[in-house]
């Protein structure tokens, strides 16, 4: 074992080591924490204690959190905001978005015109890495990553979200006890 240089100890240092000051200081700190947690009346409520009692108390996630995807709808007409431009699918590094559009004939100013309308929107959350590139690519702020983070399902198929799920959102899981 190679040796390392250690400077010569001063008498005070030796004395400190002799009386185990180093260990006692550490022990004192842990004792302080322990007593603090016991004496502090608010300890259990969460002050000074950093535990999150997750299923019991849902944590507040930040407004910018990238969670479960959602397709936003116009709050008044309840029409989808999606214009089926496919930009999100292009921007996605993981290719987990499929935008299926259909052509509809509509009449604009008396002239019949063809317009691309969203038919189905497939979002594979099992492959998504929540990088939010799709959200940034969306020109109409339709596709949004929400703050819902409980995405577990019992089957692999459950990870593939269709348009209905994306628009309605999933039911938030409720935990008892």
């Amino acid at each position, binding site marked *: 074992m190679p040796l390392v240089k250690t*400077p010569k100890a001063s008498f005070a240092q030796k004395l400190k080591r002799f009386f185990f000051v180093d260990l006692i200081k550490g*022990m004192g700190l*842990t004792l302080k*924490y322990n007593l603090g*947690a016991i004496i502090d009346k608010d300890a259990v409520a969460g002050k000074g204690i950093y535990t999150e009692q997750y299923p*019991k108390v849902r944590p507040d996630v930040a407004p910018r959190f990238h969670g479960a995807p959602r397709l936003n709808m116009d709050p008044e007409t309840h029409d989808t905001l999606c214009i089926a431009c496919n930009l999100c699918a292009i921007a996605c590094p993981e290719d987990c978005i499929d935008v299926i559009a259909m052509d509809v004939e509509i009449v604009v100013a008396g002239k019949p015109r063809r317009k691309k309308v969203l038919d189905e929107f497939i979002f594979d959350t099992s492959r998504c890495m929540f990088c939010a590139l799709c959200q940034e690519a969306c020109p109409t702020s339709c596709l949004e990553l929400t703050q819902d983070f409980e995405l577990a399902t019992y089957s692999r198929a459950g990870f593939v979200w269709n348009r209905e799920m994306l628009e309605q959102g999933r039911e938030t899981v409720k935990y008892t006890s």
Partner: protein
Amino acid sequence: MLLLAPVDVLNDLLLRFFSDETVKYFIWPLIQIGLVVTLVALWVAYATYLERKISAFIQARLGPMRVGPWGLLQPIADGLKLLTKEDFIPEKADRWIFFFAPYIAVASAFIVFSVIPFGPDWAVIADVNIGLLLVLAVSSVGVLALILAGWSSNSKYALLGGLRSSAQMVSYEVAMGLSLIGALMFARTLSLSGIVGAQGSDSIWYILYQPAGFLMFLISGIAENNRAPFDLPEAESELVAGFHTEYSGMRWSLFFMAEYAAMVVVTAVATTVYLGGWYFPFVYRLEESGYHNLYVLVSVLVFLVKASIILYIYFWLRWTLPRFRYDQLMDIGWKWLIPSALINIVLSAFAVFVLQALNGWRGIQTIEGLDRGMNLTATGKGIMIAFGLAGLFITGVLLARINWRSRDFNLKTQRRNIRLVNVPKGKPARA
């Protein structure tokens, strides 16, 4: 007097069905054993809860909170979970030994409780001649469980853990036994109740006479129980789980129980020998006023409180200190604890000699009597306490001198020689 009359009523009831001798020698001990085993098992279960809570509070966490109020039912839930888990036996394990090792561990830990004096009179199962020797002997059998478990699992980590633990426990047993001898010189008996009685009649705790012995006993006890900072046999960061790597479910929980029970044993012995056991000033007034059973109960309570304080030290140390390395552990055992225990024996013997000499030659009254341990007068006590403190210091200095060459654990300085340099920007530098 009427308080706790049921005990007497039960005694009368039993006497109606059985002969006097059967009741005295057979039925009451059985009842006591049942009570003690139940209580100790409960205490062990809640020691795990306490440990988890204490560690949580030290670490700014909450600990178990889900099962019952403040997680109070957690130990029971854990026990149920462990009971229902698969009892896995590796294919190439030695089945029989793998089966029996946990039982040896639990048995060796629980048998010791038969001689622990939890209190006066009926609060102790058996008061045997060789109480302290029996404690040491039976708890030394616990090593077998560990080494057999490690060997029979047929796994390298388990074997290494088993070998480590056997080496560790065998070496620390020596220090543990030797450190108790100083206190025995004052108690003059091996019976644990006798030791408590000696301290009670002298109205002193032997920790005052023997601070060095107490420290050594505590350290070697912690090492003997494989608890941090000496938890080498099951160091999870090195040996995965040591000797119980391959154990699961019930058998694993038996090992767990054995560990905690052994901890309670060490705390109980430390309390008995050094902290006066169930003796506490002024509690005997209860006996004088005739509340015998209440007196016993309060004594038991005193004992439990004292033991709990030492148990807290266990938890406290575990959650503060890092772990030793294997060679350092052996160093501490052989180069520090055993020599210091020997020095302590010599110093205590010298102190006793000085006391006797003062009593005999100089005519200073130091010894009151020798019937229940060594009863000292106030002068004698003062001299003894001074000797105890001096012993602590002398032991430390002597050991520091003996081991000054030892690189691992000497009085090394704090080394804080890192430099801070502010290198000019844009220029790779070599300092």
